[in-house]
Each structure stands twice: as structure tokens, then as C-alpha cells.
């Protein structure tokens, strides 16, 4: 990982009429990172990505990609972009579609064809190359779209909500591909509002809400700085005996009950040890007591909270 970031955004703002979609947002993505752009619906993720891609132009601020400000289109050969809204030419053959999209990225025709066949084989679509796109199932079309995004072997992948609408099998396929490409040195930026997914693959995150950055940084650091002290507790029985203790605000700042277990954020200055002593004394039968890292979901909810939720851009379709 070299020190100069692959993406450097400085103070970008985008307004649609009176609506401020993104406000003075700055972030930087190190080379080789798997970078999660996280936020609730309408936070400005797609607008940010479109400004990255030079599809819309920021009203203020600058975007630098690969160390210069020429814009995403000039670097399109090095960028793979999967937009939030998916779609392919319905009447076109799968192989022709892939070759065409690669050609628009500057890949020579022969090489594009060879790679397309290779990728189709790798994702079990080898026999579908000569079929029209509309003859494929939705899941297969999604795979074709991934291939189109990655075929030209870009150094930077920008994926807008890549996991939205995927079935579990394709979710796994895409995750495998992302991990594979990341190991091979590709930088990957993706937006999502699914915190569990982000937590598993990202090494860097940026949480935005209402068009503003809430926090960013390496995942471990974000957890350390913003997490506080968390424990997971589960009971075999006598749970009711423990309730007064875990709902005592002097001990527990916040509790998330997941049914099987509860995630507790301890109040400032409270050590897990003292909570454990109280629980043991209460005679509730503990099944699990574990000092855990806070989940990204917990941090997200804490930081974004109700304030982060806002109606979607009235001109959302224009984002």
C-alpha cells in the first residue's frame, strides 16, 4: 500500500435545487483498501459515487483519482463501475454485450472476447454466451453485470449497493470475487446500508448521513474510538433476575436484545468485570458472557441515530 490515496475527495457539495444531497464531504481511500461507504437511504452515497465517476459534477470541492483531477471518465480503463440501477441490453447476446462494454473501456476486441469467455466459464455461464440477455434469469444477468464491471481488470472497483437484490448464492459469489480481487491488489469501494456485510469485508469505512460525513477511518480504529465497551450476554435461565441489572443506567448505557443474546454497551467507566460480578450474584444462570467488539451496526445506529434519517431527496431520481 503506497501512501498516496487512490481517491481523494476534498469538500465536495452537490445541490439539486434547494436540496443539499452532499455537503462538504471529504474522504480518502488508500490503495488496496476495501472501503465501505455506509449510510442510510438518501444519505448521499449514490450522489457521491456519481461525482466520483464524473457522471455529475460537484458544485464545490474537488475529486482526485489516481492522483489527478481529470475525472473518472479519463480513468475509465482503470475503473470498474457497477451502478445502483442494474441493466443490460435485453436483445443483445451476452458475449457481444461483454465485449462491447469492455471496448468502451478501451480493451481491444480480441482480448475482450477472450476474457469474457474466461469469466463466463468461471461464473458457470460458459454455455450462455451466445444467448440473448433477456433469455437469462435475473441472477444470471446480475453475474453478467459483475463480469462487465471487472472484465477490463481495473485497479479500482466502485460498486454502488452491489449486494442489493442478490440471492444468497450470488451474494456469496460476489463476495468471493471481491475478496479474490482485493488479494490481487484491486482497490474496492462500495456503498451499502447492510452493516453486517460491510463489517465482514471492509477494512476501511466511512459513514455518511444526510449528506455529511459522520466518521471514517480503518475499521479497527473506528471500533476502538467510537465503540466504547461492549459485552455479549446470554442466559440459560433466570433471565428475569438479571433484568434489573442490565437495565440499570449506571451500569449499562444501551442494550440491544437479539433474542438469543443481548449486546450491552457499558456506561462510562464501568468495567466488564463489575457487571459480571453483579450478574453472578443475581443467581441468573449465565450461558455466555463475553467482552466483544462493538458491531458496526451498533456504531452506525449510535452515530447516525434518528438524526440521520431524513426523507429521500425529493428529486431522488436525479441523484
Amino acid at each position, binding site marked *: 500500500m503506497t501512501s498516496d490515496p487512490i481517491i481523494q475527495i476534498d469538500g465536495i457539495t452537490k445541490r439539486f435545487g434547494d436540496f443539499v444531497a452532499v455537503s462538504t464531504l471529504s474522504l480518502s481511500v488508500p490503495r488496496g483498501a476495501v472501503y465501505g461507504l455506509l449510510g442510510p437511504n438518501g444519505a448521499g452515497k449514490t450522489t457521491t459515487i*456519481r461525482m466520483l*465517476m*464524473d*457522471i*455529475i459534477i460537484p458544485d464545490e470541492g474537488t475529486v482526485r483519482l489516481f492522483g489527478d483531477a481529470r475525472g*473518472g*471518465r479519463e480513468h*475509465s480503463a482503470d*475503473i470498474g*463501475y457497477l*451502478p445502483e*440501477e*442494474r*441493466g*443490460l*441490453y*435485453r*436483445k*443483445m447476446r451476452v458475449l*457481444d454485450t461483454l465485449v*462491447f*462494454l469492455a*471496448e*468502451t*473501456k*478501451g480493451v481491444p476486441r480480441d482480448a475482450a472476447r477472450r476474457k469474457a469467455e474466461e469469466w463466463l466459464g468461471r461464473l458457470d455461464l460458459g454455455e450462455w454466451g451466445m444467448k440473448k440477455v433477456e433469455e437469462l434469469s435475473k441472477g444470471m444477468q446480475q453475474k453478467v453485470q459483475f463480469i*462487465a464491471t471487472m472484465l477490463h481488470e481495473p485497479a479500482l472497483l466502485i460498486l454502488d449497493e452491489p449486494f442489493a437484490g442478490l440471492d444468497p448464492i450470488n451474494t456469496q459469489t460476489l463476495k468471493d470475487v471481491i475478496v479474490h480481487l482485493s488479494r490481487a491488489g484491486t482497490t474496492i469501494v462500495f456503498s451499502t446500508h447492510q452493516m453486517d456485510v460491510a463489517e465482514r469485508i471492509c477494512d476501511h469505512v466511512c459513514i455518511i448521513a444526510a449528506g455529511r460525513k459522520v466518521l471514517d477511518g480503518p475499521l479497527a480504529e473506528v471500533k476502538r474510538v467510537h465503540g466504547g465497551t461492549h459485552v455479549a450476554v446470554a442466559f440459560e435461565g433466570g433471565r428475569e433476575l438479571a433484568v434489573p441489572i442490565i437495565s440499570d443506567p449506571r451500569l449499562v448505557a444501551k442494550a440491544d436484545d437479539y433474542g438469543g443474546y443481548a449486546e450491552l454497551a457499558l456506561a462510562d467507566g464501568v468495567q466488564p468485570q463489575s457487571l459480571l460480578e453483579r450478574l453472578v450474584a443475581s443467581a441468573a444462570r449465565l450461558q455466555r458472557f463475553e467482552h466483544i467488539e462493538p458491531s458496526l451496526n451498533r456504531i452506525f445506529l449510535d452515530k447516525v441515530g434518528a438524526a440521520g434519517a431524513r426523507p429521500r431527496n425529493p*428529486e431522488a*431520481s*436525479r441523484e
Partner: protein
Amino acid sequence: MNKVWAVVRREFVERVRSRWFLISTVLGPVFMIVVTVLPALLAGSGGGARHIALLDEGSGTLADRLVTQLETGNQFRVDRVTATEGGAPAAMAELTSRVQANAIEGFLVVSGSTLESGKLEYRGRNVSSIRDVALLQSAARQAVMMERLTRRGVDPAIVQESEARISMTTLRISKRGTTGETSEAAFFLAYIIGFVMYMAIFLYSVNVMRSVLEEKQTRIIEVLVSSLRPFQLLLGKVVGVGAVGLLQMGIWGAAAAALIRYRDVVFGLFKVPAQQAALIQLPAIGTGLVAMVLAYFLLGYLLYSAMFAVVGATVSTDSEAQQAQMPVVMLLIPGILVFPAVLNDPAGRLSHVMGLVPFWSPIIMPIRAAASDVPPAEVAASLAILAVTVVAVVWVAARIYRVGILMYGKRPGIGELVRWARQS
């Protein structure tokens, strides 16, 4: 540039591969052959000798003359029936039933008073055939006239001479001299060219609109504009679709040229007798006319495809496109409406004016050039106005397109379109 080329190739290949292209390309020459061969064949079935009867009610030598007149030129084969005194109604009834049994086409009734009054009667199945009736009339007129002259004692040789049949050919004179082409052929050519120009410009421009809309609807547009500038995409699209149009017109043009060149072979293929084939006039197409058709097709297509691209970029659904394309279609329509007037008077004032207006000149000017001579200065002026308009419209269209392709939802009003065009 390679990126634009990729778009051009995609638009071209996908269209040429489509069933729509195959069918329309094949149907063009088929249509040409049909309109050439069919009239010749029909002239055959209509031109063979018609079998009729002549009912003579005591007209004497007039009946002989009529039979001779009718049978010259092999237009009619005549059975002569002489009615006995008072037997006319029975003979008529008998002939009527022969007509009904399709044994004869009809019968002509000539009486003793015909020579005096000039009145005779024809009853038959073919009275609606203008050609047959005209032939019958002219034969009767000739026979009556010759019989009258003879009875007044005019020298039979002079009478014979007066029988001269005339036939008038009309030939078109253009600046290049007499073209050898008849007025019908010129008219026919002008009509076909006008129609083809309208269809080609309209259909291929609408193709551009569909292509723009498809990329919007499938959302693939966003992937494309992350790699290409919107103008490159639009350029590739217009060039690719236009190339398909040129290819199709090229095929049609080659088919027309081949038909004119090898007409005898084609007629032979359909076993059209030589004298009927000679009735069919095929127009001559000069290189000047071909060049004009190409120039006006290209510019007219650029103009309308740019406008239709705007329609495609500003709507989100097919039904919206249907509505939004109306103003553009209405702009093209006057070019069709004045078709007959321009054909009637290709050098008239209306033709002059319509030939200069860029929205109609691509249809009007080739019609005028096919039907008469158009001064080169006028062609130059018309092309210049058209070219300037194309540049202006394409410039505005590209700016609206650039914004429109990423917009979904409510259709923009005129004010908003102006704002888009002005945005940097």
C-alpha cells in the same frame, strides 16, 4: 475514438442482424419487381383479344366495317349475329345468357338507324373497363365515319387513308435535352423517391430515439457515460444507425439499378410477352439525382435523429415517447402533405419555398430533382440552409441529451429544456 467506433459497430451490427432489417431490405426489391412486372402481366390478361358478339339488326355494310375495325389490332374477336325481322329480342336474350355463361364478354347492338343517329349500344360484363369502352368507342366512331363517307361517294382510297390511327408519346425535356423518359415514368420516380426519403428519414430517426430510450430504460446508460462522454455516445449511435440506413438504401438502389439494367431478364423470368413488357416505362436515374438523394438523406436524417434523440432522452417510458414525439412528427408531416402539389408543379412557388425550409427540403428537393430540373444555385442554397440548421440543432440536442439521459421521472417542460441546453 475507438470507443465511438465500438458504439457505431454495436448499433450497426445489432440492427443489421435484426429480423426487421432483413424483412424490410428484402421487401424493397420485391416491391419494385411487383410494381414493374404486375402491370405488364395485367396488360397481358387485359390486352388479349376480347371475345364479343355483334348483333346486327339490319345495319347492312356498317356491321362489316365495325367487325373489321374491332378486329384490327387484335383487341377483339367478334362473332357476328344477324337478327331476323322481329327476332331481335330473342337474339338479345340468347346473347345475354352467353355473357352470363362467360362465353363472351358482351355484345354490341347495331341497328339500321345507327348510321343516321350515331347511336349504338353495348351490353357486357366489362363496361367498367375504361380501356375496353374507349376502344369500342373509337372503333365505332371510325366505322360510322368511314361508312358515311363511302355512302356520300368519297373515293374508297381516301376513306382508307382517313382511317389513320394515331398514337402520341410524351417525352420529358430537361436541361440535358430530351431524356427519353415519359412523363409517367418521371412522375412515378419522383413519387417513389419522395416516399422513400420520408420513410427512411422517419424510420431511422425513430430508431435513434428507441436506442436512446432503451439505454435509459435498461439503466445501462450510467455504465456507458462513466466510460464515454455523452456526445461520443450520441455520435456513435447516430452514425451507426445512419450507416444501417445507407446500407439499406444502397441495397435498394442497387436493386433498382439492376432492375432497370436487366429488365428484359426480369420480364423473361415472369414470362411477360415482349410487346406487353414494352408498355412498361422504367425511369432513368442519373448520378446527379443519386448524389442529391444521398446528401439530403444524410442531412435530413441528422436533423431528425438529433430531434428524436432529444425525445428519447427526455422521456422514461415508451408511452411517454409516443406523446413526446408528436411535435417532431408534426414538423415532418407538411413535407408529405405538399407531395401532390410539388409533383404537379415542381418549379412552382410552393416547391421553391418548401425546398428551402430545412425541415422539408430533404423530402421536397429530391422529388423536384426527379420530376424536373432544379437550378444548381437553389440546390446549393437549400443544402447550405439545411447544413447550418443541422449544426445548430445537433448542438442544442447534444446538450439536452447529456442532461436528459440521467433524469428519470417527470417529463421536463420547455423551460426546463432551455435550462438544460444552457447549462455548462
